[in-house]
């Protein structure tokens, strides 16, 4: 077998099998990364365990109806109490509470653990669409997972082959402009790459709330109009643009063949042809190679450009790169990315697990402190109310007891007995006199 050249069919099957095996082994992080045991210990805290979810939700709703706000510590306790993410209605309750908290001034006091608890609850319950809704609308929901949480999210989505969700988490990292340590960078790159290269992905849904528009044009008077402004960052909506920008920004941090190829692919997807040309020229002058699969994908994207001149420029730049010495290399990019992620995971996992466990402890302490602060505030408020009430009571009793002693002073306080009466001024517009109504049936009395 070794001496004979492999027939194309066998070769193809071998490659395909290898690819399939690699696709199955998307195990970047071990099961320990979830720190399930330590995470479940939060339920042993009496603060958390003494809550009954149904009653607590009802109380929070009542409080929202009466006072118009929910406090951050309450929401945090609720989120941490959720032990069965698959229960009915969990996703809706979580979404509602997070929205109430975010759209109030209390949002400045949101605890760190709330973000993690919400993410864990929705992830473990499989409510991917709700999670994406919360993640992609920061003004409405304000969910900001940290790097370790993002690692867990992307890893879980890649394992479940939910590439759209993984790519959305990566684009969230790009929008925050914080790709974090090597593992998070590599996972973001991997998520975007797998989203691009896989055929049937879940749809990239737009969760912005739809405004109901009236049938006829309704004009509304406002003080000042806003000029249309597209900031090309938070306003990006197209999945290709978001994923392209994520690739283009994350790739230089990763570097290597993977980094260079993904950067070119990113700029092409995003549609920024100037940056694409600059990247291609940089590769040519730097004598660095990129993967062939990327080149073919970029070529198909360039062909879609309407502007003929720009199209030609890009095609020529690409051709120049291909013609150069070390221009293009036949390498399986997905396996290279997988290897990169696995290496980064092996390196970072023990430390990350340690940091996560420390976080859990810190959050528990924070939760208790906040709770004590709230109790103190409530106690103070009650005390003040009681004191006020007592003061009023005492003042009333005092007035009664010392009435005759203070009679003179009290009589001075009384206003002057005689009230001055002013005659009615004639109005500026005299009332119209009604014509005299003659009653026909009136018989004057006989005197």
């Amino acid at each position, binding site marked *: 077998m070794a001496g004979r050249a492999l027939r194309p069919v066998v070769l193809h099957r071998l490659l395909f099998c290898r690819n399939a095996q690699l696709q199955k082994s998307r195990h970047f992080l071990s099961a320990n990364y979830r720190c399930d045991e330590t995470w479940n210990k939060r339920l042993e805290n009496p603060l958390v365990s003494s809550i009954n979810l149904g009653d607590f939700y009802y109380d929070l709703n009542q409080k929202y109806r009466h006072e118009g706000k929910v406090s951050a510590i309450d929401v945090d306790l609720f989120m941490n109490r959720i032990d069965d993410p698959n229960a009915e209605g969990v996703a809706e309750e979580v979404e509602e509470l997070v929205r109430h908290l975010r759209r109030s001034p209390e949002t400045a006091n949101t605890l760190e653990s709330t973000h993690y608890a919400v993410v864990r609850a929705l992830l473990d319950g499989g409510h991917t669409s709700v999670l994406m809704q919360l993640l992609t609308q*920061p003004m409405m929901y304000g969910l900001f997972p940290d790097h370790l949480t993002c690692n867990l999210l992307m890893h879980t989505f890649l394992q479940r082959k939910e590439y759209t969700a993984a790519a959305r988490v990566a684009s969230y990292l790009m929008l925050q402009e914080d790709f974090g340590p090597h593992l998070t960078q590599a996972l973001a790159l991997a998520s975007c790459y797998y989203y691009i290269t896989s055929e049937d992905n879940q749809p990239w849904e737009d969760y912005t709330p739809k405004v109901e*528009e009236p049938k006829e*044009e309704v004009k509304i008077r406002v*003080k*000042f109009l*806003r*000029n249309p402004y597209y900031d090309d960052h938070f306003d990006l909506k197209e999945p290709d643009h978001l994923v392209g920008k994520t690739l283009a920004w994350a790739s230089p941090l990763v570097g290597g063949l993977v980094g260079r190829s993904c950067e070119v692919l990113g700029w092409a997807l995003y549609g920024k042809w100037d940056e694409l040309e600059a990247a291609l020229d940089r590769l040519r002058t730097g004598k660095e190679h990129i993967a062939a699969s990327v080149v073919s994908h970029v070529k198909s994207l360039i062909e879609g450009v309407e502007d003929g001149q720009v199209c030609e420029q890009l095609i020529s730049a690409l051709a120049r790169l291909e013609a150069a010495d070390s221009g293009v290399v036949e390498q399986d990019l997905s396996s290279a990315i997988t290897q990169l992620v696995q290496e980064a995971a092996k390196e970072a996992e023990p430390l990350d697990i340690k940091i996560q466990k420390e976080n859990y402890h810190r959050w528990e302490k924070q939760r208790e402190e906040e709770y004590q602060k709230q109790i103190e505030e409530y106690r103070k408020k009650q005390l003040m109310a009681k004191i006020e009430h007592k003061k009023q009571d005492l003042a009333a009793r005092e007035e009664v007891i010392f009435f005759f002693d203070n009679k003179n002073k009290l009589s001075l306080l009384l206003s002057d007995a005689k009230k001055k009466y002013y005659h009615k001024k004639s109005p500026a517009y005299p009332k119209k006199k009604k014509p005299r109504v003659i009653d026909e049936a009136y018989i004057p009395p006989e005197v």
Partner: protein
Amino acid sequence: MPYKLVGRTTLFRGKRLWEIIGHLKNFGEGRMVVRSTFEKYPEPTFYRIVLARPEMDTGRPHMDEDNMKGEVLVEKVFRGMHYGVINMSKVAYKPDFRLVHRHEEARYIEAFRNHKPADVDIVSPVMDMPPFLKMVAERDGHAARELKLKIGSKIKWVPGGQGGPELYEGVI
């Protein structure tokens, strides 16, 4: 048909500061923003967010009155001069702000470090009287022939500059 908003136009180009801060984690602590109306100055002008506490208010529906209130402290650099940490809550509602990406921040910082303030113009504290006033003063027997200037921060007249005493040369 959508709601059509009718009102006065402005020259602002950008987003409300709260709309930018609301999208960032930790309420944009440590991020840099610029205002588009101040980009016309050649000197560097930018703000670095120190602390932000939005009120997440919602105004009347369909009138674009959301997210206008809150408290924000920023470090202000205006036209090359550093003003320290100021409270910018009252102007945060203006839809004029733009987020500066992290890889673009260095450009602004460099411009600020290299900025040399312009030389201070020393203006003479006295000025010649207008010619007619001079004639009247001479006739009435006043000794003064010069006017004392009240130099504040807004003085723009430099003797010998445009519209200086040369205008009246040879009039009398």
